[in-house]
């Protein structure tokens, strides 16, 4: 029997606002001492009133728009009731029947698939994060710094069919929240957390199996591994004639297995009802449109533009569009290149994904810290195009630019890197190399044309890397034929 995995995902993303969702405590709690970003509101003291953080609403609308959702103007917050010490009020303020965003989609491109796969987004809603528990012996220690941090939940339809697609989806989501600047998207620090709903569909009958939920997937790797593991586990249960139980599972990162956490109860257990402490939101359509107009260009649009307008390959475009800072640097250099006729986006792309990335990874710096002015990089490429310097000298110059931020022209002059394109000057070196390498010359003349490369290298060395290699090749050929 063949089974197809049918997967839906719920992803929680912490927003990087200044303050919490319903109070003025600072929302950036990473590394803070326990219970130092708390106040009567987020501690759930009696008699306090929550007030909605407008920025958090704005960020959620931005995300909904980036995910092609319909933005709902009429919004109601709801209480989700349950008892757990990470939730001081005894309920979480969330959204239930009337979320901010509905009916969107994200396209992902699996390796080797001709068409992208569309993953539909059912809803995006805004809520508050809960506190953190640490279990110590017979006790649990409660830190409520995280309680009340704005959190969005993004729910897909069951449109994901493999661990790879789930991985691509989560990567894309992180890329989008980072482009929008609404979250760090940092899974390792808990700013993004995933849950998976998984069932196996019988490929022959089309019948759907029992849905199992896997919670607390806190890295890209665990998303991929937990899905692969759970698919195999369920296939085995079914192959042995057993039945898959409807349960909530956890993922054991150390043992790389899923384990049953508890039997799932339905939504009814949460007794949702409209939050009486928060008046409803009736958003102005004009505000929503204003937010839309302010959205940055997103990775998909950049990718399309880089390939059609700039003639880059899909792969080159994807490397540059991967994060917003790289894309913006690339575009700044392309724009600066307008003053240097002949400098192409392709050349800019090569320099960024080649030498610049190499130096960045060597130095441990990020692209935002690069102090090569976009016009300087464009100027460097123009120097190569004009044969003023050769490729070796260009790389040398680039390294100094990376270290000092100085203009390429000055560096080239100072280090004397100008390419020697004067035939008269080079002919001397060519004759010298021919005289010094009789054996190689002999082999060349007997038909081993590859030896030419060696001879060019000798001339380059004699010129201390400054000779125009193409011209050297031409001169060598001429000299060897006549000589």
């Amino acid at each position, binding site marked *: 029997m063949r089974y197809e995995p049918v997967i839906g995902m719920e992803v929680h993303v912490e927003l990087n606002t200044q303050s919490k969702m319903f109070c003025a*405590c600072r929302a950036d709690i990473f590394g803070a001492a*326990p219970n130092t970003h708390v106040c009567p509101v987020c501690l759930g003291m009696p008699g306090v009133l929550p007030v909605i953080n407008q920025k958090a609403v704005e960020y959620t609308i931005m995300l909904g728009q980036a995910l092609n959702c319909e933005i709902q103007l009429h919004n109601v917050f709801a209480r989700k009731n349950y008892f*757990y010490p990470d939730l001081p009020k005894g309920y979480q303020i969330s959204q239930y029947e009337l979320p901010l965003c509905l009916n969107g989609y994200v396209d992902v491109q699996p390796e080797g698939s001709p068409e992208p796969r569309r993953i539909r987004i059912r809803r995006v809603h805004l809520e508050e994060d809960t506190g953190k528990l640490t279990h110590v012996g017979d006790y649990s220690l*409660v830190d*409520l710094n995280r309680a009340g941090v704005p959190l969005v939940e993004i729910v897909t339809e069951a449109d994901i069919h493999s661990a790879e697609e789930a991985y691509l989806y989560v990567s894309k989501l992180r890329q989008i929240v980072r482009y929008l600047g609404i979250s760090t998207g940092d899974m390792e620090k808990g700013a993004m957390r995933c849950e998976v709903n998984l069932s196996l569909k019988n490929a022959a009958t089309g019948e759907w199996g029992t849905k199992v939920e896997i919670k607390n997937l806190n890295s890209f790797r665990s998303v991929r591994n937990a899905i692969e593991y759970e698919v195999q586990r369920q296939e085995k249960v079914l192959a042995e004639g057993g039945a898959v139980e409807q349960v909530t599972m956890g993922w054991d990162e150390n043992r790389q297995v899923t384990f049953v956490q508890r039997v799932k109860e339905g939504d009814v257990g949460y*007794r949702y009802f409209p939050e009486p402490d928060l008046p409803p*939101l009736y958003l102005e359509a004009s505000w929503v449109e204003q937010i839309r107009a302010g959205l940055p260009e997103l990775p998909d649009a950049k990718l399309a533009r880089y390939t059609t307008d700039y003639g880059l390959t899909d792969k080159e475009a994807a490397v540059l569009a991967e994060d917003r800072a790289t894309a913006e640097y690339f575009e700044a250099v392309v724009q600066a290149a307008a003053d240097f006729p002949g400098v192409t986006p392709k050349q800019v792309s090569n320099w960024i994904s080649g030498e610049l990335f190499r130096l960045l990874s060597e130095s441990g710096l990020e692209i935002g810290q690069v102090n090569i002015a976009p016009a300087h990089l464009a100027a460097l490429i123009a120097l190569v195009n004009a044969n003023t310097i050769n490729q070796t000298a260009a790389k040398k110059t680039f390294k100094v630019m990376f270290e000092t931020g100085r203009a390429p022209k000055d560096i080239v002059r100072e280090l004397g890197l100008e390419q020697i394109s004067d035939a008269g000057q080079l002919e001397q070196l060519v004759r010298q190399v021919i005289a010094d390498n009789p054996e190689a010359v002999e082999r060349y003349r007997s038909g081993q044309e590859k030896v030419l490369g060696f001879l060019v290298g000798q001339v380059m060395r004699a010129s201390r890397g400054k000779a125009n290699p193409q011209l050297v090749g031409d001169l060598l050929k001429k000299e060897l034929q006549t000589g």
Partner: protein
Amino acid sequence: MAKLSRQEVEYIAELAKLTLSDEEKQQFREQLSAILEYAAILQQVDTTGIPPTASAIPLKNVMRPDEAGLSLSNEEALFNAPDAQDGCFRVKAVLDDTP
């Protein structure tokens, strides 16, 4: 309107994490049923054509700018805590069954 069943009372008690004696179950069955009957009177009002509302207060769109302010100190936060350790509230161990 039918009375709440005993099972319904037990389910509600379970959600509220309450342990009830048999007498209490009977008592709450009566009391909760009386509340439901009272609510049923309201449900007789014809609301055809009236959009549902989530709030009876004539307020809407109350939002605040995203500005961080002061929080409590750790001492203040834990001042009323029955039990504390390492700057945290301390509670009896709970199974990790957060919904």
